[in-house]
């Protein structure tokens, strides 16, 4: 028993190494959102394509929907965009955009260049609604249920894995 004592430092090192290795895999940019399971913040914004028509939170009650935060200045948005266009074509769920801190003309031009997956985009020029949704890393994607409760949030670009393994099963259970 006593002869194994010299292994203690090695064992301690092993434990430390395991902790550090696990720490490397964590993404510090992914802050757990306190909004999950809470009602989506109230908003009333004009449409990107029509400054006279507005959409509010209560208009969306009764259906499951996806809110995708995007901007024409956002490089990572371009990366996820083809995936989103394809996803929207499958018509599983209405996808709405939140055009965050953008200029109307730039946003509209961006959509006509890269394709428009959105039922409508809400125009959030000063970023107020973005702040209410706790947006800090565009693009972000929210899944909101029939009662207007946020059920899922993706920070950063969507990936095929997230869409397939997280969002689609969630949509199925919410729409059941």
């Amino acid at each position, binding site marked *: 028993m006593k002869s194994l004592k010299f292994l203690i430092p090695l064992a301690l090192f092993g434990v430390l190494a395991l902790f550090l290795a696990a720490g490397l895999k964590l993404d*510090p*940019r992914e*802050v*757990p*959102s*306190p*909004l999950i399971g809470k009602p989506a913040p109230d908003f009333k914004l004009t449409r990107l394509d029509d400054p006279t028509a507005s959409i509010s939170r209560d208009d969306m009650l009764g259906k499951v929907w996806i809110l995708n935060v995007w901007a024409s200045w956002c490089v990572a948005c371009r990366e996820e965009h083809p995936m989103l266009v394809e996803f929207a074509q499958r018509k599983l769920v209405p996808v709405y955009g939140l055009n965050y*801190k953008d200029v109307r003309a730039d946003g509209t031009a961006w959509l006509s260049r890269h394709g428009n997956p959105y039922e409508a985009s809400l125009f959030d020029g*000063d*970023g107020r609604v973005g*702040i*209410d*949704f*706790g947006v*800090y*890393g565009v693009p972000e994607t929210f899944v909101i249920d029939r009662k207007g409760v946020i059920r899922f949030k993706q920070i950063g670009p969507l990936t095929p894995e997230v869409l397939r393994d997280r969002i689609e099963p969630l949509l199925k259970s919410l729409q059941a």
Partner: protein
Amino acid sequence: MTHPETRFARVVLLACLVLFGATSPLRAGEAAPAADDPALEARLVAITSELRCLVCQNQTIADSHADLAVDLRNQVREMLRRGDSREQIVAYMTARYGDFVLYRPPLKESTALLWFGPALLMVAGLVVLVVVLRRRARLPDESFETDDDTSGPTPAAGGPTS
């Protein structure tokens, strides 16, 4: 007549002048909205320097030049003008970004280890130290190596050795 070296030096000097001349007005522009109410700005700095900027996570909202930090400072400024308390502002931030924004996290079950971990580590270290020292004090003299005064290099304190 000019040497190539002096000509090069002139070009460098000119480049420096152009560069610094071009950036300084930009820098001067950023401090603009502060002046009108120093007391409010002081409170703003006091509050926002305890909030983490989400975009560049090692900076406070007070320090950061990120777009979001600027927006949040404006938001806090507006709330202060409206007469909101520090607690209300902190609640506003944590409702959106979670306890993560607080540089001084609240004392909860999930953060107990964070708060008391260092003290626990120190107590554990002290306990180990005391145990080791007491065990060593009980050991008989034979278990220590003797200081061999004759063979060891014991330099005399000062003075040359002959």
